[in-house]
């Protein structure tokens, strides 16, 4: 009897103390069900959609950690820039050499990074839409928020259309089924419809860095400008019409005001990704990816400038394409680099002077000092690794140039003149007597050098498929990139782009 009582008591004791509650308690994060109910919380969610424009760095794409994913890829395969191998540096499995020669393979990590940059942005927006949909906001309050988010998502899909063509369209966060490809035409239609549907809800005001009506018009204008390249149907007039809806912007008198540290005050920038060192925004250091290690001595007498990597430079021929009178030529560093402390030329580690040359020995074995360097954005002493200048995505000069190009293509080059005049006058250049497509192409190079959009222009003008420095002819299928190999491995529903 006693045994039983004791045993029973003992057992009951065991279960009284049995805490079997295994729910996780969160302290410094919130579960998705508990967020998005106040205006502030909604703002913080929508803000996340914009911050994803800056990109990210993780173990898969241990590459450049920012929005430059798309920037670098578009530049390096164009006739504008190159990343030569310098001795040991910048070989990295041959990914840049392949990009220059247009022999890239599906496992090229730059391509994977561009893919993941866009789809991460899309997935994040899908998650935010799902989150806000669950919130207690009224449907009328939700509508403009959804429009803004979907228009931003359409920007990512525009990038994907341009880069990869036949990409899957995913819009529902809860749907984790592995998607299949959509055709280029389907993606094109999707981008057009999403933007068109969103426009009535978007603000008509000029609001810096937000997806406004003007931004949506600009993306649509880009879509129509490249319509022939994307889907084989020219829509030059639609592009002009869209450009004409854009209002509230003027060219800044100083070209470089668009690339200054405080470029958010520019009257020309339509869409940009804001950066601020105090806000801890990481990335946007393409100057550092280009300048020589010792360039810092030309920026600060005590070398107070972040590390630079001596990588990307202009292709031979780009620097000399600018007239010496062209104010925009200063977007590159050429010649002797002067040590601010000594007043003499900076020495490289190997004892040779740091003098940037336009020509390079070769793509596979360039010298440390070869190639002129990108310096479009301001470089200043004391700058933090986290940069302050905003990354410009769309500026008003592009709207002018689009209209000019479309008029030339429609056979009315004289209608293009007033638009072009604005651009060339600021640069200090003369207008030619007759305006042709070749002039437009050269002007696009000079106006938008190293702004991450040259590949698309090369494709539209057809130069992409011809020969240039360290590159033979390019087959037509390479107008779009292959779907990254690891994406195909993990999603067997996807088909590789034709030709690859």
């Amino acid at each position, binding site marked *: 009897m006693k045994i039983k009582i004791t045993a029973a008591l003992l057992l009951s004791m065991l279960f009284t103390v049995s805490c079997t509650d295994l729910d*996780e308690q969160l302290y410094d994060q919130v579960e998705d069900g508990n967020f998005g109910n106040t205006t502030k919380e909604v703002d913080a969610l929508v803000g996340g959609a914009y911050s994803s424009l800056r990109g990210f760095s993780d173990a898969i794409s*241990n590459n450049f950690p920012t929005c430059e994913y798309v920037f670098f890829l578009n530049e390096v395969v164009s006739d504008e820039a190159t990343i030569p191998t310098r001795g040991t540096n910048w*070989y990295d499995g041959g990914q840049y050499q392949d990009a220059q020669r247009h022999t890239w393979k599906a496992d090229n990590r730059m391509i994977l990074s561009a893919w993941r940059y866009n789809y991460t942005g899309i997935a994040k927006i899908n998650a935010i839409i799902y989150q806000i949909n669950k919130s207690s906001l009224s449907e009328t309050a939700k509508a403009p928020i959804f429009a803004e988010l979907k228009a931003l998502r359409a920007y990512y899909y525009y990038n994907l259309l341009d880069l990869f063509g036949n990409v899957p369209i995913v819009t529902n966060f809860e749907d984790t089924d592995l*998607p299949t490809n959509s055709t280029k035409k389907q993606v094109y239609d999707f981008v057009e419809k999403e933007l068109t549907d969103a426009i009535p809800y978007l603000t008509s005001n000029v609001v810096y860095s937000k997806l406004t009506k003007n931004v949506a018009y600009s993306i649509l204008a880009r879509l129509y400008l490249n319509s022939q390249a994307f889907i084989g149907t020219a829509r030059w007039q639609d592009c002009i019409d869209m450009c004409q809806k854009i209002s509230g912007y003027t060219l800044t008198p100083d070209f470089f005001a668009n690339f200054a540290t405080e470029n958010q005050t520019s009257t020309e920038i339509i869409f940009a990704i804001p950066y601020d060192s105090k806000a801890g925004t990481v990335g946007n250091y393409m100057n550092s990816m280009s300048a020589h290690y010792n360039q810092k001595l030309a920026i600060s007498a005590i070398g107070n400038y972040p590390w630079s990597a001596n990588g990307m430079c202009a292709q031979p021929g780009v620097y000399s394409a600018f007239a010496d009178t062209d104010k925009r030529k200063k977007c590159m560093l050429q010649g002797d680099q002067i040590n601010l402390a000594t007043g003499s030329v900076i020495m490289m580690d190997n004892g040779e002077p740091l003098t940037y040359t336009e020509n390079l020995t070769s793509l596979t074995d360039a010298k440390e000092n070869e190639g002129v360097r990108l310096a479009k954005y301001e470089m200043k002493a004391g700058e*933090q690794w986290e940069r302050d200048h905003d990354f410009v995505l769309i500026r008003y000069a592009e709207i002018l140039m689009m209209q000019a190009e479309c008029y030339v293509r429609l056979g009315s080059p004289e209608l293009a003149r007033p638009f072009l005049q604005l651009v060339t006058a600021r640069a200090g250049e003369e207008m030619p007597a007759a305006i042709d497509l070749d002039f437009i192409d050269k002007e696009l190079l000079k106006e938008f050098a190293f702004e991450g959009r040259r590949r698309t222009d090369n494709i539209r003008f057809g130069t992409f498929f011809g020969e240039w420095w360290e590159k033979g002819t390019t087959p037509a299928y390479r107008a779009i990139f292959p779907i990254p190999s690891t994406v195909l491995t993990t999603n067997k529903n996807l088909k590789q782009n034709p030709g690859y």
Partner: protein
Amino acid sequence: MNSKNTKGVLHQMWTAKGAVLLIFMLFLSAGIFAQGKKQVSGTVYDNTGSVLPGASVIEVGTKNGTTTDFDGKFSLQVAVGGAIEVSFIGSTTQKIQITANSNNIEVRLQNDGYALAEVQVVSVGYGKVKKSDLTGAVSTVGADDLVKGTISSTEQVLQGKVAGLNIIRPSGDPAAGSTIRLRGGTSLTASNSPLIVVDGIAGVDINVVQPADIKSVDVLKDASATAIYGSRGANGVIMITTKSGTKGVSVTYSGLSSVGYVTDNLDLLSANQWRGYVRQTNNMDAVDYGGNTNWQKAIEQTAISQSHTLSINSGKADSGFRTSISYLNNEGVIKKSGLERISGNVSGYQFLGDNKEVKFDMGLFANIDKWHPIDYRIFERAYNLNPTIPVYNEDGSFSSVTGNIYQNPVEILTNRTFDNERHRLLGYFKTEVKFLKDFTATANISLEHNAVKGGTYKPSYAVMEGQTEGGFAQRSYAEFTNAQGELYVNYNKVIGKHNISALAGYSYLENIYEGFGAQRGGFVTDAFSYNNLGAGYNYRLGDVYSYKGKSNLVSFYARANYGYDGKYLLTATVRRDGSSRFGENNKWGTFPSASAAWRISNEGFMESSKGWLDNLKLRVGYGVTGNQDGIGEYKSLSILGVGNDSYYDPITKTWSLAYSPKQNPNPDLKWESTEQINVGFDFGLFNRITGSFEYYSKTTKDLLYTYEVPQPPYLVGTMLANVGEMSNKGVELTLNADIVKGDKFNWNANLTLGHNVQKIEKLSNPTYKTDVIYSGSLHGLAGMSGQYSQIIAEGYPVGTFWGFKNAGLDADGKIQYYNAANEVVAESALVDADKRDLGNIQPDLTLGIGMNFTYEKFDLGISGYGMFGQKALNATNMMLNDPNRLPAFNVPDDFLSSGITSSPKYSDYWIEDASLFRIQTVSLGYTLPLKYKNSKVRFYVMGENLFVFTSYKGVDPEIGLNAQDGINQTGKMDTTGLAAPGIDRYNNYPRPTTISVGLNFTLNN
């Protein structure tokens, strides 16, 4: 029950324990005397005076009997006037008459000789068993056999001592720990370190216990032994039993002073060799800075170390205590590095009750570490810098030559302040109550607390971050609390030849981690160091942070043992674990095991072999264990958090923080489970040789890995999931021989051998498809961004080097390669399909060997360990043999004669055999007996790391098994995952050779 805070939980546990105690007391005091009989109790000792557990005590002429417990104590109802017979295998039997006055009987059995090892008691988790009754694979190391010397981290005492247990120190930094691997490791991402159990408290930091406080270490190796630890048992369990009051009174001291120095540096060009090269090649651009510097030596120092331990022990029949205090100050051979530790330990026990029914045990361990982490970037710079650059300019300031990865490493070491401090505390209180004759209930409450605080200052004149930030200060604080409560009941019964025991228990564990920190740059003066962060004016988002997280683990466990006549032994265990870290769909896991042993030598038909075969036992076991370490908190949930995701509000022109989804939620997340079969033999021969042989085969399923998932549809590109399968198979041999046993001269030798074969069996399942995972990242090395050197793929072990096979140099000094068809081709002709298996980092054989000689008062000990067959990528060498380096960057001596003209490219040209045998310690001692009560003094000299036999060309072949960057900048080992094992890349903190003198004395009273 509400688990909102630890206090509440602990409070409830205390209350519960109190109630249980009360019930037992009431029950006992109700009286258990029977008419005409008497309760007698006593203690049984062996001939050395140690308590003897498991001795059989039987009332003569009856079947009434019991066995002594692990304190050698027994209690039995015996008829007054009768007698008891006390016996133990290998000992003479004693008969004792029981009178009305008999109580607290002390019995001393005379030992026949051989059975000492059999008497050994082994901790198996929630109880102990005699070694002879073990059915699982367990290795035991006693205090005398632990590695001695300049020990900075407690696991070092086991190096080479246990077959199948590899302890690898990737660095000679006193502040760095080791990687511990038992039987090859079972996980890709999760910790592969065994569970550490100190005095029954599971999951604690091994360094909470100092080597001098260790009484014995039991290593549970197979699943049948570790399954009692369920979801934490897959990597084996190291059970540490600390010293507690033993009979008598004694004061002991042990002390050691040592000198450590670096014996192996890379052979790089000296200033004169460099000048010779420049003259020969007539290099006009080369800059001679006029100095003569060996940059490796410039960052090194002779390390002076000392350690002292003092302890007091007092033990009586009913109670005992022990206290110890120790201090160590181990300097590192790299300037500024080192470890200072002060630690204390108090433990005691007390019996209560007429028949000692209740026993209280308590222990408190505390220590404080202070160290100054060094910046590991100095090594690469020491290899890079031109040897003609002097360390100091003529005015005494540090020389500074601009260049890429070219900062003066001595300046880096000198001009920065890194002060770290760690506090460790472990306390426990254990109550054991005997009731109903055969039952013992145990309640054990413990708390472990581990806190680290850090302070960093990089003054405005210090290169790199100091200058760019205008002075940069950082403070950090992190703490970890591990609160546990255990309640379990043991049952022991001997019925004739049947020996039955059982265990059932419950445990609750709660881990809380939290911390905060802040950093600022921009100081007007460097006077404040890190003590006044408010004085910095540069402030960025992310400069302040705090965090907190919690997990808990709830477990029920049971074990049953049955033995018949000491010949046939069976054990079965089961544990059910519930963890908050697991996903919603897999909160609970069950981990069973069963094992059996047969003592063949006790069979009648073995009678004829008695002359030479002392013991022969066959063991077979099977079990399932888990590993849940790879799952961090909250990994299964869909959560929103703030990262560096700030966004700009153009209306207010301010920045705010965005909230973003952080991970792909995985509600199916669960532990990795390892099934293991173990077959073992234990044997004893000629009264001289003992040993055991083990064969095991284990398969780990549901491998946790951060798998790449397709985007779209997933939010982020990776997801922690249970997918793959890995196997480890191997054999182990342990031998111990008393080669010479004499009055004056003794010679003992021991040997451990382990062989393990690892293979990834699967990497995909219906949801996750992975052909291959690239690992062994070379990212960060020049020209190797995003490049990998290893693969994790089906059919290969972890750490398989995958790349091109070289065909030597051609006439121009270009490295040539083999293509897939084994034709010699140039680098430019290589395609991916030419890559192949280039060997792996897994050793084929691990070996530990020790010999001890005593001649009268002298003793000599030698120990060594080895690992054979493993490959290592000498990435340091690969990067240094670069024709682009000279004249600005230094190169190895060999480079000039090698004629290499190819830029560094990963291939097997740079993969080396990293087999090694290290003479770990050699010690010579002299023991002087003192006249006073068996007291004695021992003096000794000792050499550590005296020699390494290896063909490896780098600084040291012993490279971290999972050191992506070896050790991170705070000097902390990365103990999880197998990201980039076996790669030597600029991070070789040299291992010192150390000579020490020591003194031990024991004063008995």
